């Protein structure tokens, strides 16, 4: 085809028209989501991808996703591409390790784009104004898992396979233990740290070792609980899920589990952005938190092995979370070295930032935060 004047003019006109339509489309909210692993891992990333799918049900939201992005400069590239090529106005880099230095660096370069990080690393005043943080009090759902686990165990030995001894993980271990000991005061929780978020061979090895030690209920805090759920089911013990509903992987042994409900959180953000609110103007809060009551997290449906008394206690705990009277971390509370960490009469509410820098394990946990 020879490019003559007419074709050139038509093409130019078409391009202009495209430009105009994209200007008109500006009232669409474009949100970018970045995951550290695959989108269907039965875990952390799947929970976020489900949140993205949920918010995209709104006709005026355009979701852009990229999975398996490493916590390196790769994530900076992804963020820039989402901003420059897709026109993302809000970006959700969901992994813990994306924050420092990657989000901080890109956020300074694009002061008009909002960056919302999942986790507790944002500090007011220290970090850029267009950065915020959101997280759910999933320890509430994990506490409920603990109550059910405490009822289900016969040996009184529970196992917790965790990735790294960071505050969010320790908080779940402690909540699980406190929940279990509320049902069975003699229960202990043996912790194994695998050292990283996704170590399938080590997770299987850890699960096997714990089961060999007589542990009969397992739970975990790793990116994808799949291998642990399957190993537990194969060895015929009970298991509590984490991140997403894993009951399909352990149809016999699945008790319950803590799940995220990110579609609610993302929808809230989308509506605020559409209404013209922003972090920079201070109309979107920099810290957004919520638990069972706010609908940020939920509990999996009970598995077939959960008996009536366990359900009753678990439902009672849930009800107290829903009406806001439940406090997980309250005095007198000792750590597992016997030192008093919360004196009698003192309570840490969920919103207390003290809990987001937790460095101790409660009495009843067998394990240590030291590496």
């Amino acid at each position: 085809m020879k490019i003559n004047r007419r074709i050139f003019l038509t093409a130019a006109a078409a391009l202009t028209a495209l430009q105009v339509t994209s200007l008109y489309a500006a009232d669409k909210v474009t949100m970018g989501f970045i995951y550290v692993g695959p989108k269907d891992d039965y875990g952390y990333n799947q929970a976020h991808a489900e949140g993205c799918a949920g918010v995209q049900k709104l006709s005026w939201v355009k979701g852009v996703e990229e999975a398996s992005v490493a916590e390196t400069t790769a994530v900076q590239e992804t963020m820039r591409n989402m901003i420059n090529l897709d026109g993302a106005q809000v970006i959700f880099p969901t992994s813990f390790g994306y924050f420092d230095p990657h989000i901080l660096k890109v956020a300074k370069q694009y002061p008009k784009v909002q960056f919302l990080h999942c986790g507790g690393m944002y500090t007011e005043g220290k970090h850029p104004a267009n950065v915020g943080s959101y997280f759910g009090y999933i320890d509430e759902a994990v506490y409920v898992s603990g109550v059910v686990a405490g009822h289900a165990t016969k040996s009184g030995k529970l196992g917790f396979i965790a990735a790294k001894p960071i505050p969010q993980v320790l908080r779940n271990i402690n909540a699980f233990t406190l929940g279990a000991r509320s049902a069975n005061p003699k229960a202990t929780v043996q912790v194994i740290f695998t050292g990283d978020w996704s170590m399938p061979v080590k997770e299987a090895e850890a699960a096997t070792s714990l089961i060999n030690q007589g542990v009969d209920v397992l739970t975990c805090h790793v990116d994808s609980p799949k291998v642990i759920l399957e190993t537990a089911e194969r060895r015929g013990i009970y298991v509590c899920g984490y991140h997403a509903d894993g009951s399909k992987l352990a149809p016999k042994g699945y008790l319950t589990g803590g799940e995220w409900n990110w579609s609610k959180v993302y929808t809230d953000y989308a509506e605020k952005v559409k209404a013209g609110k922003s972090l920079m103007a201070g109309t979107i809060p920099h810290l957004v938190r919520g638990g069972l009551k706010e609908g940020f997290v939920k509990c999996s449906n009970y598995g077939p092995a959960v008996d009536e008394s366990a359900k009753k206690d678990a439902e009672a705990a849930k009800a107290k979370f829903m009406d806001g009277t439940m406090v997980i971390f309250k005095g007198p509370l000792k750590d597992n070295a016997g030192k008093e960490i919360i004196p009698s009469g003192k309570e840490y509410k969920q919103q207390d930032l003290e809990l987001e820098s937790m460095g101790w394990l409660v009495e009843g946990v067998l394990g240590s935060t030291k590496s």
Partner: protein
Amino acid sequence: MNAESIGWWGVPIGILAGAIRGGTPFLLVSLGECLTEKSGKINLGLEGVLLMGAMTAYAISYKSGSPWVGVMAAGIAGAVLGSIHAFLVSRPKVNDIAAGIAMLLFGTGFAFYLGKPFIQPSAPQLPGISLGGWSHLPQIAAALKISPLFVLGVIIAFIMRWVFRSTRWGMQVRAVGDSPAAARAMGVSVSKTRFICIVAGSAMGGIGGAHLSLFYPGAWTEAISSGQGLMAVALVIFARWNPVQCLWASLLFGGAQAVGPSLQAVGINTGYYLWNASPYVLTLLVMIITCSNKRTLAGAPGALGAGS
């Protein structure tokens, strides 16, 4: 449901069981690498082959319903990747290490790309061979449930030793690896022999991947290999290119993987990062001990890394 605890016995049992379970991929990959290196070429792409094998085995097992078909498909996938590598390194002036790294990246990326839809479904698993029926302890029974692919690996190890020692074909492979010029003078086709060795070696690597996704840990995820394919290459040096020693070395590396978790399970919490790193530390130690610029390694094929 077992309420019995085996306490400290959990550590040796865990290491033993871990050696067999975790050592199987090391075994199959190192045997494949051993065969490849005996013919005078290095295939660093076996890490990619391992992942490709794991993904293919899982996908085909899920689609066909038969794990054995999955194992076969993993072998074929390995052979296909191997034939690409074999073709590349048979060209003049192609460096086999560089080509291997390219194959590693290609195999890994390709497996991740094709494997996306198979992360979530559960595929039928390979049945274990129970050798622990004599024990009333469920821990021992579980520890002695052995992967059929481990048995396959042990058989291949002994067959390979016999082939290298006492068969005409095995001698030809050794001749090609030690002195291609002499082999050529004997009338042996160097390029054909190397092609067959690389393809067969990669097929074994693929089957090693099938063990990961269809037996232990028994799932397809992108982090499933965590460098085991590369460690197996170091392991071949450690085993001095001897297939039966590859077996012992694989058991050692597999056992090292299990040390960290089993110690934590009995309440030893200090230094778990160090214990978890033990397979890698072991690899480094092997490299340091075996590397010397004063002498060549005993048992190393003469043409290895010589570019001829």
